[in-house]
């Protein structure tokens, strides 16, 4: 079974990193994975998005026009990509920055005030970790404990950042469970 999730937002929101963490966790679980960035001429503050594909068999095409799920960290991303998400998929909406909703009734919206929750924890920079853990918890795409280890490993060279990112990780799980 192949699943695709698109992560999208502003450059600097940690979009590529949260996608990489998810891909890492899936790889550690033994799945086939592919991390496909959208690269192109971009400017500071421009959009950043990438897609993670996981599958139990060899992944073919890296060209994904209709992902199973979407993690939208800003409004332009939601507006652009919500319409292409497959029916029945999860659309995570970073409600701190996105005042609107997807406008679809055939997908499942997961409302996560990621930026506000991150600020409350002490650093807006960990909004991406809140988003990825909330998404992983709701979608079941990867094992939560494996993902948690991947986050820890990612920050292994900057150990003082681990505690806040662990708090952010738990906050994401809490939000996903409560919504």
């Amino acid at each position: 079974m192949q699943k695709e999730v698109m992560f999208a937002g502003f450059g600097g929101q940690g979009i590529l990193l949260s996608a990489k963490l998810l891909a890492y966790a899936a790889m550690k679980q033994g799945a086939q994975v592919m991390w496909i960035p959208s690269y192109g001429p971009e400017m500071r503050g421009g959009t950043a998005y990438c897609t993670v594909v996981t599958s139990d068999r060899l992944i073919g095409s890296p060209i994904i026009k209709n992902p199973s799920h979407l993690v939208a960290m800003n409004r332009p991303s939601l507006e652009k990509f919500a319409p292409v998400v497959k029916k029945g998929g999860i659309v995570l909406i970073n409600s701190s920055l996105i005042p609107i909703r997807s406008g679809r009734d055939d997908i499942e919206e997961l409302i996560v005030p990621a930026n506000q929750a991150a600020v409350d924890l002490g650093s807006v920079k960990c909004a991406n970790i809140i988003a990825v853990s909330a998404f992983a918890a709701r979608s079941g795409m990867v094992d939560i404990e494996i993902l948690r280890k991947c986050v820890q490993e990612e920050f292994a060279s900057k150990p003082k950042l681990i505690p806040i990112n662990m708090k952010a990780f738990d906050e994401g799980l809490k939000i996903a469970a409560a919504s």
Partner: protein
Amino acid sequence: MAKVLMKGNEAIGEAAIKAGCLNYFAYPITPQSEVAEYLVKRMPEVNGVFVQGESEVAVGYMIFGAAACGERVFTTSSSPGVSLMSEAISYIAGARCPAVFVNIVRGGPGLGGILPSQGDYFQATKGGGHGDYRMLVMAPDGVQEAVEMTMMAFVLAEKYRGPVMILGDGMIGQMMEPVEFPDNLYVPPTNKDEWATNGMDRRGSTSKNIVKSLYLDPKVLNQHNLTLKAQYERMKKEEVRFEAYNTDGDYQALIVSYGTMSRVCKTAIDNLKSQGIEIGMIRPKTLFPFPEKAIHDAATKESCKKVVSIEMNMGQMIEDVERSLKGKREVTWFGQCGGDIYTPEEVAEHVISLI
């Protein structure tokens, strides 16, 4: 060794080190700059050398210099950069020096764009530089194969004493996949004492080795070209590599596709199969030498009525496919340039329109 998740560009850099190449010269260009970014950190850790040249022209001759000294050496670039290096590639081929060139192809011509393309097929396989030389060209379809082909490239370059090219594309350079670096692909460097300018003292010799591509005597130059030709003929016998996909049973049409595009085609073939439509594919892994016989045999199978060359360009490999078919089947082209890549659905729709 355990699998690691790496970008194609970084994996190619690591593969070169694993292959025992400690010399890397390059000039940055999108979409391959991460190779340099990776190796600028990695090379000092293994006592290797990384020099950023002042241009790709300079880099080409840095490669020539190191190769002439008998060192394993490689560079990475993208299309416009490879054009600038092409003069040096011709000299390297003429002087019979082993060297590895990686082209992470972007759209052209001219500056073109920075998105994935296969527009350099002709340049790579028909000689971007001047003179009667050919270059062994391998085209990976993902990060793992990019690693394996990079490691093999150094060995093949030494076997045939000439330049070898890895022809990737922006997608393969930029995407991340789990990779392993197979230990068994490491082959120790050949002894180059017979020809390399590696120092008379070092090799304990009293005679000079001269590395050159200038032969003013027409008879000598002809003989030199015959020696080169013999290498290329041997490549055609020993180095043809390809993958046959869904060709065991009957199929109504045959796709010929390589690199990133072939991954899309595989998904299209799988999707069509689930609808009861059988399509086969030959994926050349070496673009020179070209898998002529495999394509000919697969295309002339009784059940196969149509042949289509699917490329991320305006139709280049199709000429080699036509040549392979010797007029027995017609072949059409399907592709686009600029960086948008057809989806599996679009490929499937096109193939259905043919049959």
